[in-house]
């Protein structure tokens, strides 16, 4: 399923269509979206290197993690067939919004307050004004064109994370940036990362509308309501729920389990353990345990005993003693009258207790006086 997602991104956009976009989201109780992001990134890279994908290059917009992290990631993911030292010369560019997103370091350097740090390595461009999204957009597209040229070749864009972007700029601007990216003729596909519990539901919904695939990372084990707790299981493995909107309008929902391991993440279909467990829990029986729709409707029509059988009449359950008292006090004359009219039509149980002294259910043994 994660593979299916990667395949959609690999196949890219058709002429005159929006580029496919993937949102990867998680929450703090199971913060594993970065692992999924890395997985998608390395899958796409290997597709690009093998020449299998529509795109010829990759632009990484790094907000949350340093460019060197991504360089290490590419190196460690063991992409064969290229010289690893100059791997990024040809097909990857990193727009570094991590090191100096607001231009503080630049300002301090100009004033001579801090030393000049070593120049960024080749393939990495430092971006110093993340609040200016127009500049950011042109920066991203420039890098992309730097790889594939001005022709018809396309490139991919990976943004980690939109959350960082949303901290500085309003949603409307971010949305326009993302839709501009998707509209651009040379963009093959794009994906971004989101921490869902930092934003309003409206913000998340807006971003999900803009993406053709939504992959959400959810913890496998949920605590009871109101309990917030860290669970080690949720940090090691999680469920990936993917909602994939096809070109023809069909929507596919898939879920999969993944484990975080030393070497990366491994996916496993969710059916293997849980579903087989669920199947064995329901015993095999000859008769049907479920109700059909018609049966359910019929069942709801059945009036249960002691329910209001005549809607205009108050619900009374005879308790012997009280109604006797009432009739003695002359308060229940009306009830008596109606009782009389009813007597003719239906049966009745008449019960008059012998005396008030005797309690209806006395604990005394009635055979007490017998000498057996």
């Amino acid at each position, binding site marked *: 399923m994660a593979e299916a997602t990667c395949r959609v991104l690999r196949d890219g956009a058709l002429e005159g269509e929006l580029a496919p976009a993937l949102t990867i989201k998680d929450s*703090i109780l199971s*913060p594993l979206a*970065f*692992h999924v992001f890395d997985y998608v990134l390395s899958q796409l890279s290997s597709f690009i290197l093998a020449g299998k994908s529509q795109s010829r290059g990759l632009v990484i917009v790094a907000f*949350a*993690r*340093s460019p*060197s*992290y991504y360089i*290490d*990631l590419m190196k*460690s993911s063991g992409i064969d067939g290229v010289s690893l030292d100059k791997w990024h010369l040809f097909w990857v560019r990193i727009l570094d919004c*991590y*090191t*100096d*997103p*607001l231009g*503080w*370091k630049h*300002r*301090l350097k100009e*004033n001579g*307050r*801090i*030393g000049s*740090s070593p120049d960024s390595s080749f393939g990495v461009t430092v971006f110093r004004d993340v609040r200016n999204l127009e500049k950011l957009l042109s920066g991203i597209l420039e890098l992309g064109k730097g790889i594939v040229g001005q022709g018809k070749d396309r490139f991919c864009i990976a943004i980690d994370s939109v*959350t960082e972007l949303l*901290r*500085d700029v309003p949603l409307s601007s971010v949305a326009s940036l993302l839709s501009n990216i998707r509209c651009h003729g040379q963009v093959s596909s794009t994906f971004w990362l989101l*921490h869902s*519990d*930092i934003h309003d539901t409206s913000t998340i919904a807006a971003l999900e509308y803009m993406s053709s695939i939504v992959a959400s990372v959810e913890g496998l084990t949920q605590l009871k309501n109101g309990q917030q707790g*860290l*669970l*080690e299981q949720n*940090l*090691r493995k999680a469920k990936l729920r993917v909602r994939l909107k096809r070109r023809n309008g069909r929507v596919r929902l898939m879920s999969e389990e993944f484990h*975080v391991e*030393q*070497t*990366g993440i491994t996916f496993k279909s969710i059916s293997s353990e849980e579903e087989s467990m669920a199947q064995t829990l329901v015993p095999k029986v000859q008769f049907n345990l479920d109700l059909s729709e018609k049966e359910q409707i019929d069942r709801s029509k059945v009036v249960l005993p002691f329910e209001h059988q005549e809607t205009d009449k108050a619900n009374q359950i005879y308790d012997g003693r009280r109604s006797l008292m009432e009739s003695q006090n002359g308060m229940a004359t009306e009830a008596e009258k109606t009782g009389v009219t009813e007597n003719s039509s239906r049966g009745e149980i008449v019960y008059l207790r012998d005396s008030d002294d005797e309690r209806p259910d006395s604990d005394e043994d009635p055979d007490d006086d017998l000498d057996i």
Partner: protein
Amino acid sequence: MEGSSNLLDEALGIFHDISSSSSSSLPSRSCVLIEDCVETSGAFVIHHILKRSLSSSASVIFVSLSHPFSHYDRILRKLGCNLAAHRDSGRFFFFDMLMLGCTDQSVGNIHTGGLIEFYGKIQKVVEDIISSSENSKNITIMLDDFSLIEVAAKGSFNHSLDFLRYCYTLTSEFGCSLVILNHEDIYLGEESLTPIVQMEYLANILIKVEPLATGLATDVHGQLTVLNKGMIDKSRSSTNKVQNFHFKLKENGSNCFYPGTRA
């Protein structure tokens, strides 16, 4: 004292080297977030990490917004560590920022560059340490506490988070480690816990200091939850461990133990 807090050390990834009888400091590039609350202060964790860092060969840049130097000096002396001597030998750098955000001070208006200046000072010290030592040293930057930076930034969490993000870049750029203390309960009233959650996403070691869940006890002062996401930066190994301890504070240190192992 030496052996008693081993659980906390282990959870933090500080390992004792028996052969050289010196402990290592925090793993480089780690970012530790300590969350405490009014009932149970997490200051002892700060003191503990400070002592561990100084007893290894690491340098410490300590940014204090809550207490003066003398406060830490007295406490660390009880723990068997002379801060003044370390300061004189150039391994302990103390930023007294108690006056940060006071408008009549020379610090100036925080919105128009106070925090930028301040960040510049920190990076300058880091660069000086790096250039002065031949072999690359571990540098620990400690922030006590973050909520007061927010106060200094006139309550703008975003602005203070910008500052924190810049400090965070020092971890990847110079291999420093970052230790931040913040209070969890000051965000509880808001409709969501977003500020603290944003910091939790940033940190790779999270320490929650809470009162005992089952109530008060004389010999247990509180409980620690340590979440170690591991260092995904270097070896790309992610351990993701969650550990729970109880702790007891003593005159000359703290004592960590697994629940139920001490009467």
